[in-house]
């Protein structure tokens, strides 16, 4: 009798302890939703609509493993790809970004393959177009073979440099010239030399968006070399990194993203350094100032960095994905204060994080965080979302350009009685990765009078009133 009583008491205790623990944690682990989640070497992750069903998929690269297209179907994340070229398990893919390079309203996917650490590589990259014959690699066409990228690289980013919806792809190479691919007369051409951005460096992370010029600028975080900040001047670029004090010559760049650190309606630069100080570059008097302080800037084995509002409280978090050491999460409070949030789920003390991306893949108004692992050991993917118990409100803005394609590189600004909050429509960020092309806002307590500005990639601004929350609003460029 006593034993039975004690056993019951023990079970009740266990129950309450587990409840308390789950309440205490920021994320909940939803990895079990990933179907056939095998041990593998994965790298970059992108979010795009690969089957043109108006829903986004996580595209996960494989390093000697299949590239995956993970679609949310019937409560599971399932690989829906059946195409051999897309799968490409023989090649070693690390970087990925998607954008509409041919102005047909659908995004092509650039897979950056790397079989050497630096310099010349064996296999070219792939540029996948979803044609009527299924996926084709545009680089396999004879007309494009002379322009293959045969240099080891890392990240790729989409750039609508002229603001006309015709995307080019900046390829951050390592130990060889940077490439900038655009399609012209059905031919893929490397314009890097013409645009004077064909510099040789240890290319690592790269982001593109409305940083300074009002159009799409490029920031590249490099290793063993200065960072680049390319100012867009009528579609041509000028490196102003040194003048604007973001060249960071003594650090080795990694995960980078654009974020409105001070909630003032403009994008600043969050960039991290491998075992070096992580930076929060905020524009002040025509110079960027690093406002990162401990514990945010403590050096770590950093890979991907993501800025997003996971818990829908209206303040963005910064997720730092480290490899071989625990991940970290910070909330960006007012005045640029980074408050560290202790996490248990997504902490991944022994995780070999290589890439990560966010998207509201199940369309419930809360972002999912997918983390890829690999490099020094095979590990499965993991997935988390904020464990939100209370009621919340959100707003998701999905700008589409005049061709109907995601307006990657455009800026969305939420205006209300409490903030002016800019977000980029991600053109490529984190490290090797690209987030969903949606500006996701949690709504703050007491927030009202909400309107939305969209600054398109051509620099023009349009304003929209918001009458209804908790939905995704598509905005089409005129």
């Amino acid at each position: 009798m006593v034993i039975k009583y004690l056993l019951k008491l023990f079970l009740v205790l266990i129950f309450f302890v587990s409840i308390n623990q789950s309440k205490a944690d920021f994320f909940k682990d939803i990895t079990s939703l990933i179907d056939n989640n095998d041990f593998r070497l994965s790298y970059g992750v992108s979010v795009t609509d690969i089957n043109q069903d108006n829903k986004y998929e996580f595209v996960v690269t494989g390093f000697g493993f299949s590239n995956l297209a993970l679609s949310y179907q019937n409560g599971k994340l399932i690989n829906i790809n059946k195409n051999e070229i897309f799968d490409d398990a023989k090649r070693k893919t690390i970087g990925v970004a998607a954008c509409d390079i041919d102005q047909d309203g659908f995004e092509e996917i650039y897979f950056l393959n790397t079989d050497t650490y630096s310099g010349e590589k064996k296999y070219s990259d792939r540029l996948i177009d979803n044609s009527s014959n299924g996926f084709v690699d545009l680089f396999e066409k004879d007309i494009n073979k002379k322009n293959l990228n045969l240099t080891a690289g890392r990240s790729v980013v989409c750039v609508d440099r002229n603001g006309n919806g015709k995307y080019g792809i900046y390829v951050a190479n390592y130990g060889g010239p940077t490439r900038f691919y655009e399609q012209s007369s059905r031919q893929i051409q490397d314009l890097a030399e013409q645009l004077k951005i064909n510099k040789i460096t240890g290319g690592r992370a790269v982001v593109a968006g409305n940083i300074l010029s009002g159009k799409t600028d490029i920031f590249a975080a490099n290793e063993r070399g200065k960072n680049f900040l390319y100012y867009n001047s009528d579609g041509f670029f000028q490196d102003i990194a040194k003048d604007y004090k973001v060249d960071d010559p003594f650090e080795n760049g990694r995960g980078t993203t654009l974020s409105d650190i001070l909630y003032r309606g403009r994008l600043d630069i969050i960039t991290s350094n491998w075992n070096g100080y992580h930076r929060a570059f905020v524009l002040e008097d025509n110079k960027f100032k690093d406002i990162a302080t401990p514990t945010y800037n403590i050096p770590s084995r950093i890979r991907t960095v993501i800025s997003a509002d996971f818990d829908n409280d209206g303040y963005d978090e910064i997720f730092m994905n480290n490899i071989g050491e625990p991940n970290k999460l910070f909330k960006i409070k007012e005045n640029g204060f980074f408050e560290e949030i202790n996490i248990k789920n997504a902490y991944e003390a022994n995780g070999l994080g290589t890439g990560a991306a966010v998207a509201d893949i199940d369309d419930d108004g809360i972002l999912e965080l997918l983390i890829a692992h690999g490099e020094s050991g095979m590990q499965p993917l993991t997935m988390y979302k904020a464990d939100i118990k209370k009621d919340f409100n959100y707003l998701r803005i999905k700008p589409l350009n005049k061709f109907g394609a995601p307006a990657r590189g455009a800026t969305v600004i939420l205006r209300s009685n409490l903030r002016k909050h800019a977000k980029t429509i991600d053109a490529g960020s984190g490290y090797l990765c690209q987030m969903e092309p949606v500006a996701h806002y949690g709504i703050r307590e007491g927030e009202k009078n909400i309107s939305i500005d969209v600054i398109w990639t051509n620099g023009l601004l349009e304003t929209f009133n918001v009458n209804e929350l908790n939905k995704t609003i598509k905005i089409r460029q005129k």
Partner: protein
Amino acid sequence: MREIFNIFCKKFKALKTFFIFLLITFFCFIKPSYSKDFNYYDDLVKDWIKIFPDQNRNAAGPKFFKHILDKEITYQDFIEYNKLYCAVSGSLISPNSRPDFVYLKSAENGEKICGFYHKCCFPCSCDLMKYSQVKNMKYKFSDGEKEFTVLTIKNPCGKKDFPREVNRNYFCNGEVLDNNQVVSIDNRLVIGLLHNSSKCNEQSIAAIDKDEYTGAYCELRNNAPLEQVQGGMGDIFIKMARD
């Protein structure tokens, strides 16, 4: 005609000599240019025998600090050089090594100051946190005057148990700190630089305390009896730095 030729030759020789003299003077006085491509580590390795003529670098961070400060360099160069030696052990540190986030007491007001310490090994971070205090220092570099935070210990020159493993003559002139060889502030010996320093907040202190090394390991090391202290410099630096 021949005379004119001879005069021309003589003048040309004089001109040549003058030109060579100018070149030599230029190269004698030219300063090394520091940039991303400049290898600070190689430069310190090259200077090592000048810094430590008897080749004993034990606990000789102060010698590195003074040597670097005496170079006519920019503030950024000063920062980069100071990442390359361990203030506690005097050992060189490989470039791009990862610093520890630490806190130390301010020698001025007792406040906890947080910052980054480039160390050769973890025990040195522990010894530093326990036995060193920080002070602010100003210095005029080639690009202007800057203020920064330095790591200091009490003047050890009067110690009767000055560790025999350390070359006392590097630091002391009798019982006084030798300012020709080291830098001192208010009779405290400057042993190195605390990078990116700021007043600690609760979040920073918690992060240091919960870290595997600066937290748990240091607590163990810093509470062990001196005779049981192993690793790093053992008890050499501690003997020099303790009260």
